[in-house]
């Protein structure tokens, strides 16, 4: 049994692991029969970072910085370096990540391979848009520099390419210059989805960061209520140097599944909803609390009990987003299964650079569920059906359930990625969604 799991701790797979330590060395493929896959921090939720019957090439030690150009804000670093490490480095130098997901414990390689997005998607697009170059080491021993100018197609296949085009050895990223990484934050309570969409539309022009938490247990008149958060970096220089980020508290052991029950969740959600006054405006001097609330609990995935958790994240075209989201929230509330991590955001229209990038114009909803057998899978299937019917898509980095026909509908270009895929690289996810399981 491999110690390497995904963040959702589902599925459990049998796989070997070989550590990578030096970027100049060839891939350690000697004596390996099965497929290989780079594994960074294991923060994908499903099986995109797993390789049943194959080998993981772990990149934890492939974390060297290579060059930093303070004029251009260009950082070149090995793919195993984490966003947390980049932040520790760039915050005191007046830079921030141009795009960041909800955790800083992902690697640069993982951020590229999943073309991650953040609360500023409407302004900055996906992470891949800020990658100026990268190097790809393929199983034939070749090393290829890819960028929006050179080897463009391989670059596009690698951004959001789920690590299938070979090993990303390093990437070059353009950091965001900020006068002050601290934020001016507003939290606004809203009563339903129409109000959310109005707030979102009104805020996108004036705020760098917008996101909403929804109470996914609220039914009837309360359906779709939540808290809208919008923020800008402060424009006055910080009084003192920002503190270096700290590691969060650790949950010492796996918690029992019954902790997350309809009553505890309802209580949490009601409290969270009513906490802010009508409109709270405040300055957040430590940006990490705003971007990474969950990183404050080092291994929060253990809260979900022994079976683990699944995530559902879809994007829906704006035309009937409100209606479909309403149906999804009704389904979720009725199931009584959802937890507190329900996130809603409207994506902007900046094109994603990857062949298989998930973000596209529309509204995105992310929900997570503890795995409770049949009940969970039925709900996931129902939500997936709604997303497909609406002409939406779903996020591979979060997925553990999609069937090949759903995947083909969501990603009609996926055969093209198969052409760019390194023949020795594959993942449990890829074999599942392309119907090659067991091969």
């Amino acid at each position, binding site marked *: 049994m491999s*110690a390497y799991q995904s963040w959702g701790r589902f599925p459990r797979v049998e796989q070997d692991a070989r*550590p990578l*330590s*030096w*970027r*100049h060395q060839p891939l350690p493929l000697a004596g390996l029969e099965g497929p290989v896959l780079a594994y960074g921090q294991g923060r994908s939720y499903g099986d995109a970072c797993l390789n049943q019957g194959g080998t993981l090439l772990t990149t*934890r*030690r492939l974390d*060297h*910085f*290579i*060059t*930093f150009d303070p004029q251009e804000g260009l*950082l*070149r*670093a090995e793919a195993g370096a984490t966003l947390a490490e980049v932040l520790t*480095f760039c915050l005191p130098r007046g830079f921030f990540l141009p795009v960041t997901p909800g955790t800083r414990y992902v690697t640069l390689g993982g951020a590229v391979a999943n073309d991650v997005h953040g609360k500023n998607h409407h302004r900055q697009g996906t992470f891949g848009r800020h990658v100026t170059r990268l190097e790809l080491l393929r199983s034939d021993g070749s090393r290829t520099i890819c960028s929006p100018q050179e080897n463009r197609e391989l670059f596009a296949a690698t951004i959001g390419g789920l690590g299938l085009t070979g090993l990303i050895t390093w990437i070059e990223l353009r950091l965001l210059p900020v006068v002050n990484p601290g934020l001016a934050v507003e939290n606004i309570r809203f009563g339903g989805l129409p109000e959310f969409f109005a707030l979102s539309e009104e805020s996108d022009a004036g705020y760098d960061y917008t996101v909403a938490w929804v109470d996914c247990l609220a039914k009837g008149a309360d359906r779709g209520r939540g808290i809208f958060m919008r923020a800008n970096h402060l424009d006055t220089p910080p009084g003192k140097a920002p503190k270096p980020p700290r590691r969060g508290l650790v949950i010492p052991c796996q918690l029992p599944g019954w902790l997350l029950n309809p009553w505890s969740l309802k209580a949490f959600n009601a409290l969270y909803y009513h906490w802010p006054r009508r409109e709270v405006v405040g300055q957040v001097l430590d940006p990490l609390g705003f971007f990474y609330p969950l990183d404050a609990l080092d291994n929060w995935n253990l809260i979900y009990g022994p079976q683990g958790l699944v995530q559902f994240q879809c994007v829906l075209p704006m035309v009937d987003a409100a209606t479909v989201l309403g149906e999804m929230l009704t389904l979720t509330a009725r199931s009584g299964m959802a937890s507190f991590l329900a996130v809603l955001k409207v994506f902007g229209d900046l094109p994603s650079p990857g062949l298989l990038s998930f973000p596209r114009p529309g509204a995105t909803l992310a929900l997570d569920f503890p795995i409770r057998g049949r009940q969970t899978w039925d709900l996931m299937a129902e939500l997936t059906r709604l997303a497909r019917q609406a002409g939406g898509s779903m996020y591979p980095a979060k997925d553990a359930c999609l069937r090949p026909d759903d995947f083909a509908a969501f990603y009609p270009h996926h055969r093209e990625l198969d052409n760019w895929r390194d023949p020795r690289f594959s993942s449990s996810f890829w074999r599942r969604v392309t119907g090659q399981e067991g091969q």
Partner: protein
Amino acid sequence: MQKILILGATSAIAQATARLYAVEGAAFCLVGRGAERLEIVAQDLIARGAAEAFCLEADLGDCEGHQELIQQGDTQLGGLDLALIAHGTLGDQTAGQADFAIALNELQTNFLSPVSLLTHLANLLEPRGRGALVAISSVAGDRGRQSNYIYGAAKGGLSIFLQGLRNRLAPAGVRVLTVKPGFVDTPMTAAFAKGPLWVGPEVIAACIHHGLAKGREVVYAPWFWRYIMLIIRAIPERLFKRLKL
């Protein structure tokens, strides 16, 4: 600006430690095997803020060249402030039991080589009356156990040597820090199954950085190993010899 000589600069613990000083703008002379690896480490430290990073390629198992190596490193740095000895191997205990040549090799790398380096470093720093020497020993050197007593003997010997050296250099004002890591998740231990006591090399690095800043003599890394080893050392030999540790 701190001027730091690192022996075994490509080891995971050495790299993690060097990064903490690079941020402070230190200058480095990096000694180890593999020109490409050294270059990768040097680039990394420069990018993170190091003032300079020179590389010296050398096989540290070969004690013949040590004096010259120390001289060279010291000259390049313009007088070193701190030397970190971080090279080591974790040999196969069973192979070493069966074949003394393998055991000798283990003792050579983990005991004789650091002792030779420390001797030259001590003789260099003692007349100057300043500087600090840091060597990575191990909790394995605190008590002999059947599962790794060859490695343990080398590290135990090194700990005793450092203790004596500290005693000798104290009047001159040269500091000696013994670092005793527990289980560390590095390429050296890639083959082991990891339990809750395992930590990354970053944790050891933070202990070294903190220990030096606080003027400590012996640092267990992380701290709880001091108490684990206190208990392990307290078990009577009559009982200990029957345990499977």
